[in-house]
């Protein structure tokens, strides 16, 4: 149900989702990996230009303003390690076509898991009912749009056997066990997915995308004198199987062993308001929760966002510049086109401290009379596209990391998180800290762990009083949830200091 507020989670060891092993599982469609012409995608879905036109005409027959077709075929594989062996695997195949019909701000939506002319026409007529006049739609000429490519792939996942994946998962496990005598359990999962997307709309736009994604994570459990600690590391990118290298595995295993062992000395911070320094990288979660969601244009169009009347207003210090970028090569949040066929871009949300753009889908762009920003995304063909973030980060500022930490008398430094959430209307946002340090008299001192930080979006944005020059884009496995739909994201931040946030700690 879509009753939950905006949530953000990092996939964690215990929620390993289901799925697969050896491609190509899918023989009914000819594998076309990486081709960049319309024909190969039309053939893949076994449709013709003529059928596309017919289905769009049916979708428009009740007088709609706009309609689109979103064909998707996704193959997912997960290989999972427990007890030091890669001993289970999951796979999933999903394919179908989503048909959307728009009249003003109103949307009709239906989909079919069977891609035949009859099934599509039926779904189109169902979706068409959002409009209620009789109208004749004359098909327009088809314009093909060849998107740029932000994810170059050397070896596709479809061309990679489970046999080739296992050694890397095994190495992650073996490294972690070798890294510390206290390690008692390791879980590791490698997941990959490949999506074929074909898009056509009532304006004649025909475009396509081939989307790879990979995620790899390791969960380390250590025990010492009856005390158990766990830590999780993961990476995700839009890449082919060249993602898997021994260097990456070694880096991940080192990181997880180091962090897990530090937890044995970690405590909980004191409760209450204090200065917070957010370390470069994962701390981009601050932007995602405190600001990003509230800038998604649907909430503003509906007037429910706390930023709904702030366009063009000063919301932060001059040195604050925040962007949402779909074009960073290979990033989890990158997309060649969004799920409404629009090109993605680097959208500047806050420039010189001033709110400069919302994140738009087609409906909100039309409502605000601006160009779409390429933020219309959907979980899959079964879902209506809505404005979503891609890779959200803050550009470098004038300060140095050392000077930022040195400026704090009593506060916390945080850089590892598991999840966050925001309430769009009141502006409250949170993120859960897995690991950080106390800052005492300008120095990082005791490790701290497992506490929630809560703040208010507009206040926190105004309270960003120092920004470092060490921007780091994080390649963690971030998935954002909104209206019941998940979407992969990336994010980043330079070291940043916030005047005060409420730290969920203990009272003396």
């Amino acid at each position, binding site marked *: *149900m879509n009753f939950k507020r905006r949530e953000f989670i990092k996939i964690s060891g215990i929620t390993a989702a289901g799925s697969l092993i050896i491609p190509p*599982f899918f023989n009914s469609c000819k594998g076309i990996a990486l081709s960049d012409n319309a024909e190969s995608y039309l053939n893949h879905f076994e449709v013709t230009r003529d059928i596309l036109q017919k289905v769009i005409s049916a979708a428009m027959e009740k007088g709609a303003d706009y309609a689109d077709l979103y064909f998707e075929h996704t193959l997912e594989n997960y290989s999972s390690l427990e007890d030091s062996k890669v001993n289970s695997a999951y796979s999933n195949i999903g394919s179908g076509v989503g048909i959307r019909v728009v009249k003003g701000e109103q949307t009709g939506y239906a989909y079919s898991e069977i891609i035949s002319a009859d099934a599509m026409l039926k779904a189109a007529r169902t979706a068409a*009912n959002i409009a209620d006049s009789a109208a004749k739609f004359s098909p327009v000429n088809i314009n093909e749009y060849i998107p740029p490519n932000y994810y170059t792939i050397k070896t596709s996942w479809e061309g990679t056997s489970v046999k080739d994946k296992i050694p890397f998962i095994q190495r992650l496990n073996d490294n972690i066990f070798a890294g510390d005598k206290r390690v008692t359990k390791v879980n590791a999962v490698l997941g990959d997915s490949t999506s074929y997307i074909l898009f056509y709309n009532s304006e004649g736009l025909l475009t396509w995308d081939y989307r790879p994604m990979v995620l790899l994570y390791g969960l380390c459990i250590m025990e010492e004198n009856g005390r*158990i600690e766990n830590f999780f590391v993961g990476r995700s990118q839009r890449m082919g199987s060249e993602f898997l290298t021994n260097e990456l595995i070694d880096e991940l295993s080192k990181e997880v062993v180091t962090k897990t062992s530090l937890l044995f000395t970690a405590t909980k911070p004191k409760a209450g308001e204090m200065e917070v320094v957010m370390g470069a990288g994962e701390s981009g979660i601050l932007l995602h929760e405190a600001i990003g969601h509230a800038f998604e244009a649907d909430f503003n169009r509906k007037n429910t966002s706390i930023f*709904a009347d702030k366009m063009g207003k000063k919301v932060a210090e001059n040195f604050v510049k925040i962007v949402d970028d779909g074009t960073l090569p290979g990033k989890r949040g990158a997309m060649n086109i969004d799920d409404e066929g629009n090109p993605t871009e680097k959208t500047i949300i806050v420039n010189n401290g001033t709110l400069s753009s919302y994140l738009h889908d087609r409906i909100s762009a039309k409502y605000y009379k601006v160009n779409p920003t390429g933020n219309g995304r959907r979980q899959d063909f079964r879902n209506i596209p809505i404005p979503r973030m891609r890779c959200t980060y803050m550009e470098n500022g004038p300060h140095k990391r050392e000077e930022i930490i040195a400026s704090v008398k009593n506060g916390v430094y945080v850089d590892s998180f598991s999840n966050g959430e925001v309430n769009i209307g009141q*502006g409250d946002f949170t993120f*859960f800290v897995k690991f950080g340090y106390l800052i005492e008299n300008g120095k990082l001192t005791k490790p701290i762990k497992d506490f929630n930080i809560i703040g208010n979006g507009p206040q926190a944005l105004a309270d960003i009083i120092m920004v470092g020059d060490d921007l780091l884009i994080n390649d963690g496995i971030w998935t954002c949830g909104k209206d019941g739909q998940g979407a992969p994201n990336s994010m980043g931040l330079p070291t940043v200091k916030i005047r005060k946030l409420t730290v969920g700690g203990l009272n003396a």
Partner: protein
Amino acid sequence: MNTKEKYDLADLVIEHALKSGAQQVSVNIYENRSNNIEIRDQKIDSLKESNQGGLSINLYVDKKYSAHSTNRMKKEELFRFVDEAISSTRFLAEDEFRMLPDPEMYYKGGGTDLNTFDPKLDAIDAKTKINLAIQALDEAFKKDERIISVSSYYSDSITNSVMVASNGFRGDSGNTNVSLYVTVSLKSLTGRPNDYWYENALFFDKLKKTDIGKKALERTIKKAEPKKIKSGKYTVIVENRVASNLAYPLYGALQGSSIYQKQSFLIGKENKPVASPLLTVYDDPLMPGGPGSRLFDSEGLAAVRRPVFEQGILKNFYIDDYYGRKLGMRPTTGNSSNIVFNLGTRGLEEMIVSVKEGVVITGFIGGNCNGSTGDFSYGIEGYFIKDGKIVHPVNEMNISGNMTEFWFSLKELGNDFLENQATRIPTLMFENVDLSGI
């Protein structure tokens, strides 16, 4: 596909998988139809109709295991899908614990109808559903000059599924659900507070269709202009609507997989006190008309009513067949059903009156719990209570603690669980709880 066609297809796929080299197989085939309607400010915002289906399969091949799912249901494609799945399973490492459950533990048919399927729901027309959502919205729309947006949602879902295992299990089930939800946003001095109310039911006729918009509006108005209070230890009342948020970590820690992976703070606590003696909770899959009711679980194990906590003592974990074997424990079930808390004698209002200084939690935002240690910290919103009265709304605060101690501070359970929820949890009161604010 009707139920017989699903069984026939499942049988065919199993036969093919056994012929192709699997020693054991189980197959699940499902179909789901759903409608989602969103009304905003008296206009339809979106109408969505969903029809989906799929097949999932568990394969046991030469002591190796894999699971797969697809929504491509043509027979020839399924066969090819299974063939490739079997050949790739052979690359995996052996796992001696992977096998289908002992048929002795399966549900063997003959169970009574648990009343989880409304045969009439499918025939309700779109207009009726749209009107219901509009009515719900109208209870709030323009009823207060501060309102900036009201949205209402109608949704329903019809699911039918069949499960067959090669060592003898056969079972089918049907579930329906229907819900109405309203959310209201207000313009206030400090922000745009929003809140919601919803009702749901398994049967269309049983859905409560009034007072949804009204309650959503009342709740939103009560939340306007919140402020945080001083950090400290307080008596905390957690409203029934959100109380299950605090119970989830317990349920996570009761899972066989969590115990095996050492991600459970309840390891070794069977038959030991883990909560206040006030706490008794049953897992009751056989309750007629319960949202979590079922005759068998996802592995086919026959449903049994079991105590989870009895007077604060941990009585049963959630152990599925696989982790049961790995842990050397008798399987119970890996999936919770209806979680039924015992009740007290008073409701929320009476509890508030009895509190000298404390907080009512009406919503959680973010936060998490470390499964290995039980350390938790969640964002909260609600009301500040002083001398038995609500003084003002609070927000932007955290509740923190450790689950292994927290449940001992349970002081009272209410008498007021919400109908039609799989977790029948009442309002809860805890003492001496760490809250972080100013």
